[in-house]
């Protein structure tokens, strides 16, 4: 089992190489603007990994992932201002609290599938949007909500990552851990249970799989990743705004996960690139960033019509084709 767990596939090797590149090279080369963009992108890669994993492994459509990021960010800010715990402790607590929230949201949705599940999660995202807009994010105030009138207190970044360069490395490390966390689950018994559930819930139940339990498990993993992503985003800015966590953003995130390719690590990276880097690029060129929505729409059409595995699926197919050609055929 250990051998199976530690086996490195070509896709996995490429992912680890990309993570190493993002960890070592990008922070050394990028200016402050792009460091800021890449940090934000890294946070959303983690969140997208969660929603894409649920869709790819269980066929479950969750439209509340950005809302759950908001929960993680809220807990992170609240703990930062209320307690003197290290950043990492706050991050773990934020991820776990978000996981529990994910479970609570998932409980009534467990008996639903397809469109109905998507609608329930969308309504949950709408509810979270209203809570964030009404109560705002903690800024150093007293009481449960932690909101005070006037200027926000300072946020404590991790001592390992005081500079933007170091913080990007920090985020890349957590994103890599997030992908490894998902992959480990996929290779162990939960992955087998999810594969069976995806093929047929009836067959899974007949085989003795506790369908509700494993679905909840998947929701919990997506919640952990969303919570960590929200906590990291809070750490990068020092404050959060409800506009970041609107329900429409969750829908957009899911759509981009499909465009990018929900089955692959590269799909999450492509989706986050479209979500955060493309608008920043358009802004930097002086072009209205709303043009990105047109590009998102075209990408979605492309994915639905010609690329069911998303852009990443096409790239992986191309890479496999090249490998087959040059690997088996010898020298080109």
């Amino acid at each position, binding site marked *: 089992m250990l051998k199976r767990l530690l086996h490195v596939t070509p896709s996995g090797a490429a992912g680890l190489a990309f993570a190493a590149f993002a960890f070592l090279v990008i922070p050394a080369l990028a200016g402050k603007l792009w460091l800021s963009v890449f940090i934000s992108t890294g946070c959303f890669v983690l969140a997208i990994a969660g929603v894409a994993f649920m869709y790819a492994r269980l066929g479950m459509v969750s439209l509340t992932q950005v809302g759950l990021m908001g929960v993680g960010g809220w807990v992170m800010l609240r703990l930062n201002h209320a307690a003197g715990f290290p950043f990492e402790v706050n991050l773990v607590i934020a991820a776990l609290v978000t996981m529990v929230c994910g479970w609570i949201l998932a409980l009534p949705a467990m008996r639903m599938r397809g469109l109905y599940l998507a609608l329930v999660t969308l309504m949950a995202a709408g509810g979270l949007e209203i809570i964030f807009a009404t109560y705002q994010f903690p800024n150093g105030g007293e009481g449960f909500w932690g909101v005070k009138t006037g*200027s926000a207190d300072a946020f404590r970044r991790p001592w390992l990552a005081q500079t933007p360069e170091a913080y990007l490395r920090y985020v890349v490390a957590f994103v890599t851990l997030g992908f490894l966390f998902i992959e480990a689950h996929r290779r162990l018994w939960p992955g087998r249970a999810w594969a069976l559930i995806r093929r047929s819930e009836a067959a899974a139940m007949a085989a003795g799989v506790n369908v509700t339990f494993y679905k909840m498990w998947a929701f919990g993993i997506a919640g952990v990743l969303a919570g960590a992503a929200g906590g990291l985003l809070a750490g990068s800015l020092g404050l959060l705004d409800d506009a970041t966590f609107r329900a429409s953003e969750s829908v957009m995130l899911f759509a981009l996960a499909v465009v990018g390719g929900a089955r692959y690590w590269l799909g999450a990276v492509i989706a986050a690139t479209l979500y955060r880097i493309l608008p920043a690029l358009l802004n930097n060129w002086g072009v209205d960033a709303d043009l990105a929505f047109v590009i998102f729409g075209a990408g979605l059409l492309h994915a639905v019509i010609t690329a069911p595995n998303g852009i990443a699926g096409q790239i992986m197919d191309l890479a496999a084709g090249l490998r087959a050609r040059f690997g088996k055929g010898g020298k080109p």
Partner: protein
Amino acid sequence: MNHRTALAALTAFAGMTLAGAAFAADPVCGAATGEAATGEPIIVGGIYGNAAPGDWTSSTDAAAAYFKCVNANGGIHGRPIDYRVENDQWNPENAAQAAAKLVSDTDSVAMVGNGSFIEMAVNAGTYKDEGIMVMASACAISECFESSNIVSTNQGPLPSNLGAAMYAREELGATNIACIGLNIPNNGIWSCQAVIDYMEANGGTGSMALLNPGAPDVNSALLEAVSSGADTILINQPAGLALAILKAAEEQDLRDAFNWIAPTPLYDLSVPDQLGEYWYGHVYVNAELAPLQVNGPDAQNWVAVMEAYGNADDPRDTFGQAGYLSARFFVDAMLGMDPADVGDRAKVADAIRGIKGMTSDLMCGPYYVGDADFHMPNHAGYMVKIVEGGFEIVRECYEYDSAYFEPMLAIEKELGLN
């Protein structure tokens, strides 16, 4: 107002506009050499917010117009200003990215004309860490006034609200004010709470009704304010939302049931026409800077600069005046520096901190910066009433009465400014 008075006001306003237009041929900027600057550009940044629910471009528009004028008139010791602006789109991530681009990745010497609801909260630490001074113009949040490296020519919602509330209490007999603010802790809640505190300190009372800026339901907020038992409603909103609230009140014919007051965002020349006759004479607005009628030399120069170097659709409002003033004070400080130092951020920051006692007929008091963890040089203003065709001044320059200003007054005393 009877027809004769209205006609007189209209004629006076038209006369002043014509006077401004006549002056437009000859704006005075910077060194006023009449020759274009050709040296190495000095980079200056500016961040504005333009997305729902508000467009805050007028301050950077006005600063850009003034810098164009300066560049056409000798620049800063012969060097033109390269003014670069970014839109934060009311989004914290974009705000951080804008500052990273303009401050961290660029050798900018200062930020001028900033106007936003978001960026100062996100970037105040960055400005301090990078050692850059921000001469903002359309500040709306507490961080803008409670940070070491930001100083603004506008007052922000807290003083402007207090000015409106003070007038309403003293002149309109207000005893209970309902403040309709945005549900943002460092904006609407901060500035509405100051009004409640002010009223309670003066034997009255107050309350707040908050709007979600992402999905503002103006009817609900208005009904909440109406049901609070208030005799006065303070519309503490950007102009667009304030107009929507007044339209909703008009539909319910609430005009005569309350006093209607507002801070400076409603002082915009397009507002009276948009509101219509129903509201003429019934809405009182605090103006943080001099209304157009005052028409002093600097006010005329602002109009002239905008006519000659601005775009026709750049707003002519308080924030435009504030953008012009920030740019003018910045240029005056730069012109007073050793020419060898004007490209050095640290020395420019020192020069800005050294600003003391600059004056303009657009402001009621002197402008200064100083070396402190808070800055609010502008805390006195005018009160105007919306009338047909414009605004009528109902109270000339007056200082606002609140304990909030005690630290500022102490610094002014130390600097010998009051």
